[in-house]
């Protein structure tokens, strides 16, 4: 949250355009689904790179790198850095934490069931659970869902999960905005709006015309 999004925009755009270019060149005849996946991959990668080093970016890049189908696109995007980055981001530390977490989850489930059984045994057929337990259950269920949504969230508890989620939401918003602006750029430029432009900024148009031509 210290890192402002000003930096993020430029790096994100550069990375995304690079990724799009690569995905263009790699999978020309292949289906839209694959192209979409490669674009999404490059967008997520760009977002993770632009954000810097946080827990969720690390987890996201690790997740992206582990899938088999992504490897060719990643190699194209990252180039020489691919080996270095993959070595850095395939950290075995996370797996150890997974083992510990699994045990705690099962124990909690066991205790919850025991509690339910006890309460149902006492009160008869209908299960009466006290309101605090209900609230706690709702909250726990939602926390589990949030853990699944946020990359790398399964290993975090309470407050750190919330802070990572906060960061992730901010980055997602920025990512969506950037992609939308890119989309609008492609849309507007290729539609027939040129004739609808009022005559006043025509001089600017001529000036920028030369720039555009020189770029292409």
């Amino acid at each position, binding site marked *: 949250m210290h890192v402002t999004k000003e930096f993020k925009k430029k790096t994100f755009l550069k990375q995304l355009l690079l990724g799009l270019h690569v995905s263009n060149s790699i999978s020309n005849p292949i289906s839209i689904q694959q192209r979409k996946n490669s674009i999404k991959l490059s967008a997520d990668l760009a977002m993770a790179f632009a954000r810097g080093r946080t827990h969720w970016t690390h987890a996201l890049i690790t997740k992206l790198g582990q899938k088999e189908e992504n490897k060719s696109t990643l190699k194209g995007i990252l180039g020489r850095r691919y080996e270095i980055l993959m070595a850095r981001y395939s950290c075995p530390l996370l797996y150890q934490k997974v083992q510990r977490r699994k045990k705690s989850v099962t124990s909690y489930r066991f205790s919850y069931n025991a509690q339910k059984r006890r309460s149902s045994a006492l009160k008869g057929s209908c299960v009466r659970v006290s309101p605090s337990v209900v609230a706690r259950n709702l909250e726990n269920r939602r926390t589990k869902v949030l853990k699944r949504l946020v990359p790398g969230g399964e290993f975090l508890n309470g407050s750190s999960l919330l802070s990572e989620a906060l960061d992730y939401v901010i980055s997602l918003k920025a990512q969506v905005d950037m992609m939308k602006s890119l989309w609008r750029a*492609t849309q507007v430029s290729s539609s027939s709006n040129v*004739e609808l432009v009022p005559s006043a900024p025509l001089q600017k148009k001529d000036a920028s015309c030369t720039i555009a031509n020189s770029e292409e």
Partner: protein
Amino acid sequence: MEDEIQPLLNPTTASASPSVATSGASFTALLGLPPNRAVELLHEPTFPSDPALVDRAARFSVFAAAAAASSAPSPEVSPPPPPPETAKKRKDGASTNGKAKVKKGKHAEEDTDGENKLPYVHVRARRGQATDSHSLAERARREKINARMKLLQELVPGCSKISGTALVLDEIINHVQYLQRQVEYLSMRLAAVNPRIDFSGLDTFLSATTMECGRLTIGNAKVGTELDQQQQQPVWSEVGVSDSDQMNSTTNSKRLQIQLQQNQLQQFWHVDFLNTQNHLQPSVWERDTVMGSTAPHVQREEQHSFVGPGAVPLLSFDRVNPVAPPIQSNQQLKMEL
């Protein structure tokens, strides 16, 4: 984030007491944005002692230094001896309930003094509450979580009215899922557009106009939220659009174009217009089938003056159809102007 927090933490932890101040300093550094508020929420009050006022002033300055990370080092130098003592005193004295009353009394005077120095909200062991170290730590943890929840509530739209953790979490989850789906949708759209647009030229001009990009995205944020809520059904089959629908959407799209131009994004747009003039004719056919599907969404957005990207590609329909519709749309444009 952790890398940036390290330099923040190191000078403060060196000076402040280990048990409480570190947690306070790290918490404020983690929170970042509202450091003063975080300090207020977390900070445990000092016990009344003879140099109490001095101690509290010192403590405020220590924590303010931790929060702001930019204050002069001089206030940090003086507090190191008093805060450890007061921290220890507090921990020892906290065990008795009788002291709570005394604390309350003397706290009142210190309150006004404290408020002169810093806006300060006291969180403390209320009368009758357990005051041992476990519950203190637990309360600190709970307040950490509550502070973060507040930040999340401010971030997620429409969450500030909701009270209760579970419902807020619900909203947050919905928002995250919505944003992820939006990314998928946008990537699908970009995938459809991709084959014709040459992206190598775009990055130079986009980097030159990132300011406009920022402004543009702010304007579009409203649009995107409304448009994308209805995007999830597979709409590929709905290419056929009635004439009346087309006319409505074309007027909307013209209005959109005018408004966007009025937003002083002219330079951005013009470079856009000229960039892909080469790609106009062939790309229209591909995008017709893709973008025709978004036409129905336009009709549902009555209350918004901005219309999302769904409207814009309908102009491509105009190019495909005979000349008559574009002429009509030009007339409409003149009327609106």
